[in-house]
């Protein structure tokens, strides 16, 4: 209350309309929480993706009015009703995050060589190295090339343990986008309220709410980026085990004839009947 509001806010307030009612603090608290993304079951594929999403929205109409992007298909159509938001297009394109863990036993290679081959497989498929230790290598692969990459890694050695997890993040993704849209709508209304604030106290109250909403927007945007990343790039973690081959005893070479020592004695090679009998020599 002691500090004056920012100049831009004050300017906006002066220019704004006073026709819309000022949202009270309770409405602002109902703004969607980022923590909801982590709620159990939020990512289950069995759930209908967005049926209850509008109920959480403080002002869904505002999101539609401001042309918010639809979560699943990226189209410009605003989610005006639950029916629209659960269109067949949404259902047929689930957002799946793949994660695989492999134990790979190699015999001909050492751990570094095997890791290099795994990294090569990732790069050749548009992926990248995500982490590496002495016996472990993590790579990220474009999801559409996940299976091909798994096959290629299989060929390096023998897979002794394999775990593939597929997480459907469609719901979480959609919810986050809806919440983001709502928060942005709330922010816009707050900005409008701020523009119409009649005194400094009211302006400061709105400003505090604006700051809180802005933080929530940042968090949800971060979550959305993380979800998009998980969907776009599958993660493959490979633990490399070098299988030491037991040295085989070297079989003695069996010569077809016993080895002969060639003595450096020239006359030995002249011992033969025909030479003795050749009287001209």
């Amino acid at each position, binding site marked *: 209350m002691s500090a004056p509001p920012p100049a831009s806010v004050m300017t906006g307030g002066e220019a704004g309309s006073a026709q819309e009612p000022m949202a009270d603090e309770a409405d602002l608290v109902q703004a969607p929480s980022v923590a909801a993304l982590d709620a159990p079951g939020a990512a289950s594929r069995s759930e209908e993706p967005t049926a209850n999403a509008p109920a959480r929205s403080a002002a869904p109409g505002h999101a539609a009015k401001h042309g918010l992007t639809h979560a699943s298909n990226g189209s410009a159509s605003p989610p005006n009703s639950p029916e629209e938001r659960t269109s067949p297009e949404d259902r047929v394109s689930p957002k799946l995050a793949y994660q695989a863990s492999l134990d790979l036993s190699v015999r001909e290679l050492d751990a570094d060589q095997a890791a290099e081959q795994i990294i090569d497989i990732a790069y050749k498929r548009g992926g990248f190295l995500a982490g590496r230790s002495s016996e472990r290598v993590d790579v990220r692969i474009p999801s559409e090339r996940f299976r091909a990459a798994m096959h290629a890694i299989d060929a390096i050695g023998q897979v002794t343990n394999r775990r593939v997890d597929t997480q459907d993040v469609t719901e979480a993704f959609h919810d986050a986008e809806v919440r983001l849209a709502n928060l942005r709508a709330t922010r816009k209304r707050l900005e409008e309220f701020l523009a119409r604030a009649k005194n400094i106290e009211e302006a400061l109250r709105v400003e505090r709410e604006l700051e809180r909403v802005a933080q929530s927007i940042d968090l949800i945007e971060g979550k959305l980026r993380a979800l998009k990343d998980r969907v776009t790039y599958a993660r493959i973690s490979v633990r490399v085990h070098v299988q030491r081959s037991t040295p085989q005893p070297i079989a003695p070479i069996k010569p077809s004839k016993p080895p*002969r*020592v060639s*003595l*450096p*004695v020239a*006359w*030995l*090679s*002249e*011992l*033969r*009947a*025909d030479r*003795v*009998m050749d*009287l001209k*020599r």
Partner: protein
Amino acid sequence: MISTIAKNTLAAALIAGAALGATACGETVRMSTPSGFAEMHKQDHYAYRATTASGVVVAVRNEKNEPEGDLEFWSEAVDTSVTSRGYTRILEKQVESPKHRKGWRGVYEFGDGAAALRYAVTVYVTRDRVLVVEEAGPKAVVVKLDDALANAAKTVEID
């Protein structure tokens, strides 16, 4: 009759016909020329060589005992060398000269039928020299002279 007597006394006759062989490094190799053999002179590689009219040849090499080996070493070296060229050894035995010099004798055959050859090698070893007596000829002829040739080989000495 004369022929029969000659055969029976061939060994004695061989020894009786003493001959001076070629020398190497100043030593003299001596061997009794068997009856019916003619000594060949001016031999480059042999200290002594004699032949029959039918092509049976006896010859003596006087070689350095280098590398310095004993009778076992040189007899094995000779046997290995000869058999490596396709000769089949049909007999080997220890021999002793009239002067009690120990030696080794190996008898070999090579080829089949009318072209078959008989080849025998007798080895004596002194501290410095290796004396090698070679006998060779058509198998069909040599077999009749086996004993005479064996006895002749025993007469080799080096002074």
